């Protein structure tokens, strides 16, 4: 399980792509490498980093969470509907209520999935619809307010360091340590790798899974809270883009959808690549329509690399295609 986290080959490609795109942006546009633009990027990347970490935890257990977007939306709306007047108690409430709500929603996901033995895909699809209904019930149209003090703290600076940078670095580090240094983290890898084996070696798989979905809910809530602090208001549909983007970032950051392999170490690079694609297309004055094509192509290339274990071999793919009796996943074949 440690190899899963420490394997540099998993994370190296995404950081190489990140550095290339970053340098390219610097050459293309003089204003890109300014402090202001970078602070702006930190602010824009933070929710995506948290959403992708939430998705990664779930994917590591071999599941998937399609309700992340709705949890982000609901906590975003909650954070913007809390009482506005500035007082110590309200600030505490602002931090506690949405975070606990996210944790609770995630735990409910986990309870339904493990309790019924259902597919995570369809359960989170259903609960996602329910959470979205709840947020539309609380706030049918975007609006609400966020305490200025909170908003300024979350998007401002601590000394000379921008808060968003600190927030996502601390979040990523905490998540990384959770996965590598705790029993809970090791259990996640064990049960994602082989649930039967994990169960037989004494891991309480059900409980671990429930808490994984709970933690994912909490991380999604942090993304939602940060979004509301950034926008000074709430939007029930603010989380929608994060459903598919979080899966895409988790996967290009080296986490296998089969479970048990990957981690959060590549997330920051992955999220940056996603964000910078738009940025670079803007700088090149290419129509934003091409961003979808670019995202799709980058995903496919990154996936082709990771799913073939680091080697790209079109020749082997051709052989597999033309071989009379196909090649199932399961490692029967060895190309060549």
């Amino acid at each position, binding site marked *: 399980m440690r190899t899963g986290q420490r394997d540099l080959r998993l994370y190296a490609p995404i950081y190489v792509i990140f550095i290339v795109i970053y340098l390219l942006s610097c050459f293309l546009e003089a204003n890109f490498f300014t402090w202001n633009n970078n602070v702006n990027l930190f602010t824009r990347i933070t929710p995506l980093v948290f959403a992708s970490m939430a998705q990664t935890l779930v994917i590591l257990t071999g599941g*998937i969470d399609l309700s992340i977007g709705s949890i982000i939306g609901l906590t975003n709306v909650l954070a913007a509907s809390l009482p506005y007047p500035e007082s110590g108690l309200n600030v505490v409430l602002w931090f506690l209520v949405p975070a606990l709500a996210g944790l609770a929603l995630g735990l409910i996901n986990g309870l*339904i999935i493990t309790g*019924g*033995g*259902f*597919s995570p*895909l*369809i*359960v989170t*699809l*259903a*609960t*996602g*619809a*329910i959470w*979205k*209904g*709840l*947020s*539309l*019930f609380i706030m*049918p149209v975007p609006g609400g307010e966020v305490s200025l003090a909170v908003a300024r703290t979350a998007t401002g600076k601590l000394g000379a360091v921008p808060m968003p940078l600190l927030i996502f670095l601390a979040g990523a580090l905490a998540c990384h340590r959770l996965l590598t240094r705790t029993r809970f983290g090791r259990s996640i890898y064990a049960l994602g790798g082989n649930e039967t084996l994990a169960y037989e070696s004494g891991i309480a798989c059900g409980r671990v899974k429930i808490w994984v979905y709970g933690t994912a809910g909490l991380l999604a809530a942090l993304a939602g809270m940060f979004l509301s602090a950034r926008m000074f208001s709430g939007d029930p549909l603010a989380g929608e883009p994060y459903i*598919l983007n979080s*899966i*895409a970032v988790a*996967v290009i950051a080296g986490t296998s*959808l*089969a479970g048990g392999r990957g981690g959060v170490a590549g997330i920051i690079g992955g999220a940056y690549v996603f964000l910078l694609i738009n940025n670079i297309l803007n700088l090149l004055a290419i*129509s934003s*329509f*091409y*961003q*979808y*094509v*670019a*995202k*799709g*192509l980058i*995903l*496919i290339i990154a*996936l*082709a690399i990771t*799913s*073939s274990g680091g080697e790209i071999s079109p020749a082997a*793919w051709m052989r*597999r*295609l033309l071989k*009379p*009796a*196909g*090649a*199932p*996943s*399961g490692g*029967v074949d060895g190309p060549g």
Partner: protein
Amino acid sequence: MDRAEGRGLKGMKRVLLKNITLLLFLLNALLFGVGELISPGFLSADHVTAVLRTASFLGIVSIGQTLTILTAGIDLSVGPLVTMGNVFACMFINGVDGNTLWALAAVILIGLLFGAANGLGVSVTKISPLVMTLAIGSLVTGITLIVSQGAPKGLASPSLRFIGVGSLWGRIPVIIIVWAGLSLLFVLLLRSTSFGRKVYHLGANQRAAHLSGIRVNRTLILAYALSGASATLTGALMAGYTQTAFLGIGNEYILWSITAVVIGGTSLSGGRGGYLGTVAGAILLVLIESLLTIVRMPEAGRRIATGLMILIMISVYFRSKNRKP
């Protein structure tokens, strides 16, 4: 089987739990009845055909979704492909009847190609279907936007419009007949061809299918290609309904088609289920949406109800699975 026959209520419950499709069709009939009680006219021929007309578009997309889910995969690119079919059909046809036939063929071909790309990624490079179809979906959205420049042009022709909104023999909408025809073809494809049997086999156990000599890659590529074609065809048929193209038209179909398939009793782990359940599932979804609209449920309530319905259906399905001898 023999134990389940007869025996009053208990026996009936067993039969129903064993036969999800029958249960769903009865549930549909019940909901039509409830609707009639709440709002007289719900059971009128006009309203019933309106519900079925809406369900037919969902049903045709769900042909592909059923097929990919039966192979233990999933197709998230159906939404973008529906939009692409819609936009391209209007662009190719441009209101001229003579263009309709080749435009439909071209749109189906485009769907086959992108679907085959999905299948290639899933089978040959072994990318997970979830993200492979997600990536192709993003690609398709981009191409649709680039080709249409963000402002789709063109118009459906009178003949396509006849398919979309016209009726035969006075009462029966053409689109429902098209759906019934495609359903029949698809059920035959699944039940009576070697391709159908291969789909079930490889969905149940890909390794075993491979070892028993099934050409897994070809079957997967064909399944995804057909899914792409059913999505773009739906988009084109919807052009007959909406007259002009609309860029967001396919968005809801990703989740709706998966929902229809799953509440129709097809297992997401592959190899089990069939299309008749999906047909009932599609009708059920549209019917509930229509009922909730009639009782003036706001969007928030409609979403919550849809979510709860999925959870209830999967737990019912789970019970029936456990009860199989």
